[in-house]
């Protein structure tokens, strides 16, 4: 199975201006997902540095690597950080975390920072799950729903199709709209059966882009069903890798009749960012501050 087609870009970022030595509280969140990991460092609750990379076969090692990469060239070390929160699928495997908090709470908090206090409904789709989260103006979760049982409606489901069609994840948006007419969505929900269905369509002569569009359409229908279960309230925002997939996002907002807020940060860091905010609050509560 080829794994090259779906890889998101791995990178790190740091704030060029910030003088972290002046900060009162340095906090960090590490989100170890089944597919990707992120580490976010904040100084006094402001974004300082972060990394986004593929999770390796070892969760603790992935957590350490993500952290190291975020701190690269900052002059900051792990020892300078007052409090670390681990989150995500591998949250119990962040060896240097002071506390583990669920990805649900972290995504709620992170989205509140990234999108502002008006955000109420968050859709997050990661490598192996899909979440619908309702938050209040402080980012506190009011209701949530998470599916991590079924690959349909997860990044992995999309990967299977990207591999089948030999299309890279970044191309999905553009290619799925480069069609004459929007086709009927793929009828099988199950990724395994949908893949057989798609193989049949290709053999019948369907162009790749049309098959891709049919799957993006089916995926957005599934996600919409999950969102309807919790009830969509505006403002609506999307976090996780899915936000970068215009093929699904545009179809989804169309069927929802609601626009998604524009992200100003990498949507994949929402969990780790929320973790860093929780970490700041805990650091202050427990008196683990610099000054």
């Amino acid at each position, binding site marked *: 199975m080829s794994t090259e087609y779906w890889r998101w870009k791995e990178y790190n970022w740091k704030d060029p201006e910030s003088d972290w030595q002046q900060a009162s509280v340095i906090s960090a969140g590490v989100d170890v997902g089944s597919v990707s990991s992120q580490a976010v460092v904040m100084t006094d609750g402001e974004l300082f540095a972060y990394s986004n990379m593929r999770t390796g076969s070892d969760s603790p090692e992935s957590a350490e690597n993500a952290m190291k990469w975020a701190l690269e060239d900052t002059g900051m070390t792990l020892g300078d950080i007052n409090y670390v929160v681990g989150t995500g699928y591998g949250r119990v495997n962040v060896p240097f975390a002071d506390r583990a908090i669920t990805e649900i709470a972290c995504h709620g908090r992170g989205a509140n920072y990234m999108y502002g206090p008006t955000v109420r409904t968050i859709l997050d789709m990661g490598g192996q799950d899909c979440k619908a989260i309702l938050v209040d103006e402080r980012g506190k*979760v009011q*209701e949530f*729903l998470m599916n991590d*049982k*079924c690959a349909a409606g997860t990044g992995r489901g999309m990967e299977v199709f990207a591999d089948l069609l030999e299309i890279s994840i970044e191309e999905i948006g553009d290619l799925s709209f480069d069609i004459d007419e929007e086709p009927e969505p793929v009828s099988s929900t199950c990724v395994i059966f949908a893949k057989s269905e798609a193989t049949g369509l290709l053999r019948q002569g369907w162009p790749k882009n049309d098959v891709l569009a049919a799957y993006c359409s089916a995926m957005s229908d599934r996600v919409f069903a999950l969102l309807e279960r919790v009830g969509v309230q505006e403002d609506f925002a999307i976090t996780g890798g899915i936000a970068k997939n215009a093929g699904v996002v545009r179809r989804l907002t169309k069927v929802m009749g609601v626009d998604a807020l524009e992200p100003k940060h990498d949507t994949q860091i929402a969990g780790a960012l929320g973790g860093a905010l929780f970490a700041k609050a805990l650091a202050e509560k427990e008196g683990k501050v610099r000054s």
Partner: protein
Amino acid sequence: MRANYGYQDGSGAFFITIDSNLCTSCEDCVTICPSGVLEMITDDYDDVTAAVTEEHRKKIKYSCAECKPMELQPPLPCITACEPGAIEHSW
């Protein structure tokens, strides 16, 4: 907070919803469930509430099968045991 535990797949949508605002932590539902589906947890906001165990979240359709025979559809023990009505089943 309303927590929806379970999943949606090709065969349907299976969710147990537990509202921690209504839950009084009496633990009756945990005791009465014949399949060990429920447990008490302290959530991220430090509320003590009933929840579906990690183990059962991904196979809840099968976990609850014993209480959902095709023929009779009796009232569910967990829902009956919960006085404040904090538990809902979507199927």
